[in-house]
């Protein structure tokens, strides 16, 4: 197997899901899960070789000219992400198969979920920036479908659109950034870019490329001020929140930053921007989660906070920070996946997600309670879970941060305190304490709904218990691939008594204190929110969108006004200004005035044509317009005769006669001219007309005095008689060399005749 084949198979499975779901019934989730599980095992099997320093490159030709290929680049970092995507994905499919069983259109839901899995897997193994962009956008699209799955609910549609617009906007910025990044390298291949990481930093394109890529990453990873789409995305069913909006898709931005940190990172600007946005998002996410009461929204805001932490760590960029980033990434995926799935379970068995309505569930669902509590232990950063190691590393990297050390320490301390507080709240307030009246009798969730959360939680536990044997091999090569030159720090549960440990203990105490006085704490936080964050970002975004729609509606009304003559006028005016500018900038035409080649009779004809044209324009009489039309037609016929266009003249005479007769016949039925326009309008139209007429005149002079190439007519002159046996070359061209054109012309005339016939026929029918 290889990566290209695997992603193709996933896409194929996504295509099959809607058709096969109904035959597979309850087993659908289990059967679909086989494929991601296979992928998980495949990538796990590659891990030893990757840890020895191997990098797998795979490439399929796509658009050679632009250096765009379907390339895959697999190193330790891609493997770690693939394992997260496919490992969690496997459980999500099993879970969703059961969870969504009673919902309609489950096949479609599965199809979107697998489509998302394929695109996310594509993002993390992409070896070409453009390939990555394509998969990146595919994750946005499948996320849109999944958030809006309950499409009959307006708020779900709204949230889906909001997420799509924000991540789509970021995606476009990202494409621009990728193209700029590719310019100095002359390729979009990741391997070539990673091999020469300093090239872009010396280029003037660094700044715009960095800003555009950061916009892409920040929108996707819900960094402040784009964070609000993520809580909104909680309108999606729980499996989606667990998969896309905690463990995988929102990590895509973090993935990108980490992947490109050897290339784009290391500069002052990178450091400042990432630390600033990441740090602020971390604190803001934690702060906003305090007052939430919906289980999923609490988790969503802590996810925002975790994403901020990851960005902050990547921005810090030290050895400890990079280690912390990778470990925390894994920790967070494991516990947050579990927590979201459990939130779904709780809603399913108790009928509510509101934490104030919950309590005492331990008696009804002890297994679920233990699983969730252990995951929360990891979130709180308490040993022996892997979360503890993650948190210790974050503190270590804050202690050793090159700049703003104390600020980062305080921010991290605050965030972790809130996490401890929320862990206590989510565990104690949900499973213990008073048991309120539930709408239905809570029960232990089914096996399929527990196996995923259990195994994810178990992963966090085992990795925490055996960091040397399990966690290190999994993460070591990931760390070296995103921060070359840095080795992985040895992982252990017990670091000895140091600053980080002391901070951990203080965090724990602070968190417990906050929980003890939770009513006051929540009230205080809510008060500050009301005072300073009264206007929600999501609402601001919505009203911004409304204003934008109104603006475009007015703009469209202004541009698409429906008056054909103003459309025409715009075209003419723009064209004549452009052409006149060009004429102005080219050399003037030199003309020799030779009165000898101006035969008087011909000059008289020309004067007649001009007079006829002008009188057709100014006349108020339809008859004069008709006469002018005839005069012009026959005048042109005479010009054709004078300059050797015999066939043209013959045709023209016949056509002109027909045309005048037709015009008379039609005009007979039409009313007399009326005055429709004011003098001002006429002046304006006259000006446009004069501009067009005059530039056409100059163009005729240009064309008549320049010969750009050898005429191809010599061929016709030589072969007309010898090969086509005709002496009239014009006729020979029409009926022989260009016979097909003439056939087309005849067809046009036939169609016009048919149209005319049916229009006249139709009239008679209506009358009778």
């Amino acid at each position: 197997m290889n990566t290209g084949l695997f992603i193709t198979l996933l896409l194929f499975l996504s295509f099959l899901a809607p058709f096969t779901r109904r035959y597979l019934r309850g087993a659908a989730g289990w059967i679909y899960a086989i494929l991601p599980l296979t992928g998980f095992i495949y990538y796990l099997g590659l891990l030893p070789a990757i840890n020895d320093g191997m990098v797998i490159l795979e490439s399929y030709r796509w658009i050679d000219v632009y250096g765009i290929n379907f390339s895959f680049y697999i190193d330790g970092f891609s493997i770690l992400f693939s394992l997260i995507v496919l490992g969690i994905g496997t459980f999500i499919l099993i879970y969703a198969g059961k969870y969504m069983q009673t919902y309609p259109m489950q096949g479609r839901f599965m199809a979107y979920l697998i489509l998302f899995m394929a695109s996310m897997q594509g993002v993390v193994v992409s070896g070409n920036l453009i390939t990555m962009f394509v998969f990146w956008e595919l994750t946005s699209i499948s996320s849109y479908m999944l958030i809006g799955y309950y499409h009959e609910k307006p708020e779900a549609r709204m949230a889906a659109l909001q997420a799509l617009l924000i991540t789509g906007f970021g995606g476009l910025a990202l494409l621009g950034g990728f193209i700029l990044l590719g310019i100095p390298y002359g390729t979009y291949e990741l391997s070539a870019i990673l091999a020469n990481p300093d090239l872009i930093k010396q280029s003037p394109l660094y700044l715009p490329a960095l800003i555009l890529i950061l916009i892409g990453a920040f929108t996707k990873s819900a960094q402040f001020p784009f964070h609000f789409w993520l809580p909104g995305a909680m309108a999606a069913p729980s499996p989606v929140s667990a998969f896309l909006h905690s463990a995988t898709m929102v990590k895509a931005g973090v993935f990108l930053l980490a992947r490109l940190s050897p290339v784009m990172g290391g500069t002052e600007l990178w450091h400042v921007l990432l630390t600033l946005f990441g740090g602020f998002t971390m604190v803001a996410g934690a702060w906003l989660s305090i007052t939430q009461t919906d289980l999923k929204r609490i988790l969503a805001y802590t996810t925002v906070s975790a994403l901020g932490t990851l960005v902050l760590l990547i921005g810090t960029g030290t050895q400890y920070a990079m280690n912390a980033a990778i470990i925390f990434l894994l920790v967070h995926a494991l516990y947050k996946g579990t927590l979201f799935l459990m939130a779904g379970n709780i809603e399913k068995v108790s009928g509510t997600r509101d934490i104030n309505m919950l309590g005492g569930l331990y008696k009804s669902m002890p297994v679920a309670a233990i699983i969730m509590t252990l995951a929360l232990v990891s979130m709180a950063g308490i040993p022996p879970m892997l979360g503890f190691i993650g948190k210790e590393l974050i503190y270590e990297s804050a202690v050793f941060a090159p700049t703003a050390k104390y600020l980062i320490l305080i921010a991290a301390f605050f965030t972790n305190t809130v996490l401890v507080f929320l862990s206590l709240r989510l565990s104690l307030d949900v499973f213990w304490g008073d048991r309120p009246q539930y709408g239905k009798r809570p029960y232990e969730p089914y096996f399929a709904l527990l196996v995923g959360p259990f195994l994810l939680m178990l992963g966090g536990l085992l990795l925490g218990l055996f960091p040397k044997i399990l966690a290190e091999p999994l993460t070591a090569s990931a760390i070296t691939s995103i921060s070359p030159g840095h080795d992985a720090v040895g992982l252990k549960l017990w670091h000895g008594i140091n600053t980080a440990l002391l901070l951990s203990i203080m965090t724990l105490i602070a968190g417990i204190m906050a929980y003890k006085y939770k009513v006051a704490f929540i009230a205080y936080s809510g008060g500050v929110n009301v005072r300073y964050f009264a206007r929600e970002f999501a609402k601001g975004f919505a009203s911004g969108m409304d204003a934008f729609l109104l603006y475009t509606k007015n703009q469209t009304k202004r541009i698409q006004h429906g008056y054909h003559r103003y459309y025409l006028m715009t075209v003419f005016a723009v064209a004549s200004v452009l052409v006149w500018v060009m004429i102005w900038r080219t050399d003037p035409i030199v003309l020799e005035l030779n009165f000898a080649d101006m035969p008087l009779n011909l000059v008289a004809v020309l004067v007649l044509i001009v007079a006829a044209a002008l009188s057709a324009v100014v006349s108020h009489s339809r008859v004069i317009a008709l006469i002018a039309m005839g005069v012009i037609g026959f005048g042109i016929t005479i010009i054709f005769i004078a300059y050797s266009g015999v066939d043209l003249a013959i045709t023209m005479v016949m056509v002109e006669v027909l045309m005048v007769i037709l015009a008379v016949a039609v005009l007979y039925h039409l009313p007399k001219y009326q005055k429709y326009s004011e003098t001002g309008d006429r002046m304006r139209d006259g000006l446009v007309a004069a501009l067009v007429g005059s530039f056409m005149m100059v163009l005729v002079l240009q064309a008549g005095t320049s010969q750009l190439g050898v005429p191809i007519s010599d061929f016709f002159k030589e072969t007309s008689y010898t090969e086509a046996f005709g002496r009239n070359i014009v006729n020979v061209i029409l009926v022989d060399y260009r016979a097909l054109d003439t056939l087309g012309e005849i067809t046009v005339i036939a169609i016009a005749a048919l149209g005319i016939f049916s229009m006249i026929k139709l009239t008679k029918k209506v009358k009778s």
Partner: protein
Amino acid sequence: MLLLLAVVIGVLYGSAVYLLLRRNIFKLILGLIFLGHATNLLLFVASGLTSGYPAFIRFITGESESMADPLPQALILTAIVIGLGVTAFALVLVYRFYSVTKTVDLDELSENE
């Protein structure tokens, strides 16, 4: 002569544009006809002016050099015929337009949508 012909073509284009900008639909068609004429003439003039030598094969050697260029003429001939088709169709359309809407004012058409 080129200069004079250029003036004529310019005037034809100018009047065509002016007529196209009118509200009366018949004037619009008239503008279309003028535009066709102007373009045919433009092609004809731009390909060079030759008097007295139509593009016929005669059996006198050396004459083919000064003969008029047949290719633009073939193109214009096609254009004239197609122009006839378009104009005829447009004229009948105007007739139908008036018999249905009882107006020749294009602005009224867009207001009545």
